[in-house]
Each structure stands twice: as C-alpha cells, then as structure tokens.
C-alpha cells in the first residue's frame, strides 16, 4: 500500500523535486519562455509575469490530472492514456525548442548558424504560429510532458482515492516546483541575457535539450 502523502507532503515533493529534478529537465523551457514571451531588456516585473503565467498553465494541467487520478483511484488506465500522449508532447516540445534555438542563433553566431537558420526559418515561423501564443497556454501544454516526478505525484494522488484531494495535492506540487524554476529564470535574466556569449551558450543549451527531447520521443 502506498504511504499516504498529505498536502504539505505534496508541496515539499514539488519544492525538493524542483531543485533535484525540474532544474535538470525543465531548464530549456524556462529559458525558452523568457526569450519568446518577454522581450530582451524587459524589466523584472515583465519576466516575472510571463514566467508566472507559464507556471500557472502547468499547474492548471497538473490540477486536472490530479483530479482525474484521485477520482480514478487506480492509476493503470490513466497511466496508459497519459503515457500515450506524453511522447507526442515530448516530440512537439523538442521540435519547438530546436527550431526556436536555431532561429535565435542565426543572429548570434552568423558563421555557424546562418545556414541552419535559413533552412529552418520558414518552418520555425510556421511552427511558432501553430505553437501556443502565450506563456499560460504553453505551460498548460507542457504540463502533459512525461515526467517521472509528475508521475510520482499522480501515483500519490491516486493513493489518496479522492478527486479534489488529488487536484489540490497536484496544485500544491506544482506551486512547490515553481521557486527553483523562477530562480533559474531570474538568474537567466540577470546574468545571461545581457551578455552575448552567455546568451548564445544558453541557446545552444536549449537546442541540445530540444534534440534530447526529440530523441527520447523517438525511442519511447
């Protein structure tokens, strides 16, 4: 029998997991959100607003999944459906990251990225039009990414055997994950985006992680 996790436990799970898990897995999305939806040079309040909208979108999705998991009282059916959606979300997210990074790198490292940016420019523009138009919807979509820590929270919500407890638990879990990721976006704003070389390294990181997501979706 799964040991019960109370509301504080869900929050702690997110808080600790944010540092030990989310910083590694979700960092490229935080960098992407900041660059795509908050213009360069925007003040901290704008960044915070955009990043908060992204996290709110994630949390809304988590709440829905927690509600379903808690109501179902059994993870197996839910996991089967969710696991089917996951690789698709992973592939789309990976593609968006790769194309966005290629497009952005085109201006920063001309010799290396000009050709790639040209080749992918049109495709990137098309995808950007198809991609969610604001940070909230992007977060809501990315909430469906297959994530081990999210699965753990959903398993705990399932053990709760109650829809609203599962939903509230997942909201607290999502809120708990936010500080580490907000810290990352703050560091990105203060240290990276104003410096061309570091910003380029950040975009290469986004590109590499996008490729990794595409690869994981392919092998899944």
């Amino acid at each position, binding site marked *: *029998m*799964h*040991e019960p*996790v109370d509301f504080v*436990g869900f929050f702690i*799970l997110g808080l*600790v*997991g944010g*540092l*030990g*898990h989310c*910083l*590694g*897995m979700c960092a490229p999305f935080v960098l992407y959100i900041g660059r795509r939806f908050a213009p360069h040079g925007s003040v901290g309040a704008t960044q915070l607003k955009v990043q908060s909208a992204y996290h709110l979108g994630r949390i809304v999705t988590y709440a829905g999944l927690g509600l379903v998991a808690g109501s179902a009282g059994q*993870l*197996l059916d839910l*996991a*089967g459906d969710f*696991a089917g959606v996951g690789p698709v979300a*992973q592939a789309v997210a990976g593609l968006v990251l790769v194309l966005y990074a290629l497009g952005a790198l085109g201006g920063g490292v001309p010799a290396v990225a000009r050709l790639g940016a040209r080749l992918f420019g049109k495709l990137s523009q098309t995808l950007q039009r198809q991609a969610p138009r604001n940070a909230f919807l992007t977060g809501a979509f990315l909430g469906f*990414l*297959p*994530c*081990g*820590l*999210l*699965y*753990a*929270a959903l*398993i*705990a919500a*399932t053990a709760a055997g109650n829809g609203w407890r599962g939903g509230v638990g997942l909201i607290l879990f999502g809120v708990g994950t936010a500080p*580490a990721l907000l*810290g*990352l976006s*703050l*560091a990105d*704003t*203060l*240290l990276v985006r*104003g*410096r061309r070389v570091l910003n380029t390294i950040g975009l290469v990181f986004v590109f590499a992680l996008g490729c990794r997501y595409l690869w*994981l979706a392919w*092998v*899944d």
Partner: protein
Amino acid sequence: MRKWQTALGMVVVALLVIGGFAVRLRTTSPTVRLDLSQHNGTLDLGNSRADLEITPRPPQPLQAFALRLRPASQVELRDLRVAFTMRMDMGPNNYTFEADTDGSYVARGIVLPKCGSGNLDWFGTLTGVADKLPVETRFALTLTKPAP
C-alpha cells in the same frame, strides 16, 4: 550591466547549485548486493532470512506489482516498509507491508514512475523490525521497458 545585478544573479545561481547538490546527495545510488530485476532473492534479517518475491514479472514502469517477503523461519516482523529511489529525485515512492494469511508480508499495488530520460534503474530500501532488532536492506531493481 549593473554590478548589483551580477552579484544577485551569482547568489541565485549559488543557491540553486547548493540546493540541487543537497537533493542529489539524498538520492545517491547505494551499493547493493541483492538484485531483484530478473530473479527473486533472499534477505538477511539478522538472526533470520527471508525470501523476497516480485509478482507479476517482469516489473514495468507504471504497472502495479507486489513485493512479498516470506520469512524462512518464525520471526516477529513489524513496521515493514519499502522506499524506492533512483539517481534522479523521483519523490516519495514509499509502500507499507501488510501481514498475509500464509505468514508472509506483502506490499501490494506498487507503481513506480516512468522516468522521462528512459532510466529504468531503481533502488529499494526495505526497513522494519525483526525480533525487536531494526533491519535495513537495499536491493537493485531494473524495470523492464514495456513492449511498443
């Protein structure tokens, strides 16, 4: 860029690195002698031994399985629980054992998350009290990737 911005950014990075490092220390892979990935195994309970069985096999991510502990001799066991971890933090995957009618102890409905990176290597830490003595045993469990 203002110096205070750089300083604040460095402080934030330092806090994130320290926090991440502290969490990683909690989930460092332990050294284990028992591997339940392919076969059931036998645990040392101090003055006694017990068989540890997994059903059904092979254990897969997001698929429920049971872990049964079958003592080889008459031994009083209580507060048995098992905690599963992997190198990356995967939250509290803790399960309690219940006494079964045949004298064994079973943790039912164990469901382990599917790692987004494709890692299938888990570690279980079984703790409890055997004849009033605390016991703690670790074992490895590599899940099997579901067929496409």
